[in-house]
């Protein structure tokens, strides 16, 4: 399975939740599969999805699911200790780990080589860390929501991208409708 197939499968679970989605093709795929006002699409700033989601989770009670990538987590590794030491039980970080920088031409990342992001999350102090196969992502994500515990999911999937248009929605519109969805 590639990322877009994983996103298609979990879209019904994401639908009712606050979602912060990683820059580039992941956001384009989610936007094309099931655009929702509860989705915050990052149009720039690689690496900060997990931080934005944590800030959001810490100040309000609704569950927050961050869809991140292995390359993006690698570029902001300081996020893992911050997540571990500022526990928000409404926070789920779903790292779609396809071992490549998908938005820039599928160059390999170190997560596809010797480096284990699940191992790094555990070493950072994150307590509920689950590595799963792509096909199990939906079940693992539902379990995490039911558990009501801060969870880091590392979903191992294949490299590859679906072809979807660039998001042309204005960033202020994305932000405004997302904030309205947070409030309701």
């Amino acid at each position, binding site marked *: 399975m590639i990322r877009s197939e994983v996103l298609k499968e979990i879209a019904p679970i994401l639908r009712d939740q606050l979602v912060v989605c990683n820059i580039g093709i992941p956001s384009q795929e989610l936007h094309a599969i099931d655009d929702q006002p509860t989705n915050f699409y*990052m*149009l720039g700033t690689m690496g900060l999805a997990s931080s*934005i989601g*944590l*800030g959001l989770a*810490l*100040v309000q009670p609704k569950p927050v699911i961050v869809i991140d990538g292995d390359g993006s987590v690698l570029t902001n590794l300081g996020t893992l200790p911050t997540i571990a030491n500022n526990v928000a039980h409404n926070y789920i970080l779903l790292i779609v780990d396809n071992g490549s920088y998908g938005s820039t031409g599928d160059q390999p990342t170190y997560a596809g080589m010797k480096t284990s992001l699940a191992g790094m999350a555990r070493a950072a102090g994150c307590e509920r860390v689950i590595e799963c196969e792509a096909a199990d992502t939906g079940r693992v994500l539902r379990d995490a929501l039911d558990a009501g515990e801060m969870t880091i999911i590392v979903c191992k999937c294949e490299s590859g991208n679906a072809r979807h248009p660039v998001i042309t929605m204005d960033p202020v519109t994305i932000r405004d409708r997302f904030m309205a969805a947070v409030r309701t």
Partner: protein
Amino acid sequence: MNIDRKIADDLVANGVGLVTTVPCKQLAGVIAEIDARDEIHHIPSNKEDEGMGLCAGAFMGGTRSAIIMQNTAIGVTINTLATLIQFYRLPLPMIISYRGELREPIACQVEMAVHTKALLAQLHIPTYHFHRQGDVEELDAILKYTFMCNKPVAVLTDATFWGGYGDQ
């Protein structure tokens, strides 16, 4: 006047409920003051761009946020300021230790100090420079201005403002 307390008081009075910090020697007192306040959720960051992500998320969650950091961080955060904070029109007070100014003992700090105001100007970020202790009286108005216009706003606080580094 205790400027650490005054800064924390002004943040609380303006509804700032989450503050992220990356330390600097000059900022030790205000960081400790913020950490001690029940009204403020204090999240230390490992890097300033990560901190700006936390602030963006908190604001979208309905809680005003602010970052406290050193001016060297302007070099770290230019992309985040342009593509997250400015692009999505998020308000972000930045209380910045302005190293490399008068009374600075470390030469390397001057290397970023000489670029700091130019970089902020290039980014069209409203910038205020606190040099005398009394300048802190403007902080309340600066915070109100920041949340009125939904922009990042820089408050540079130099060594003279903080009382220097002791006898040199």
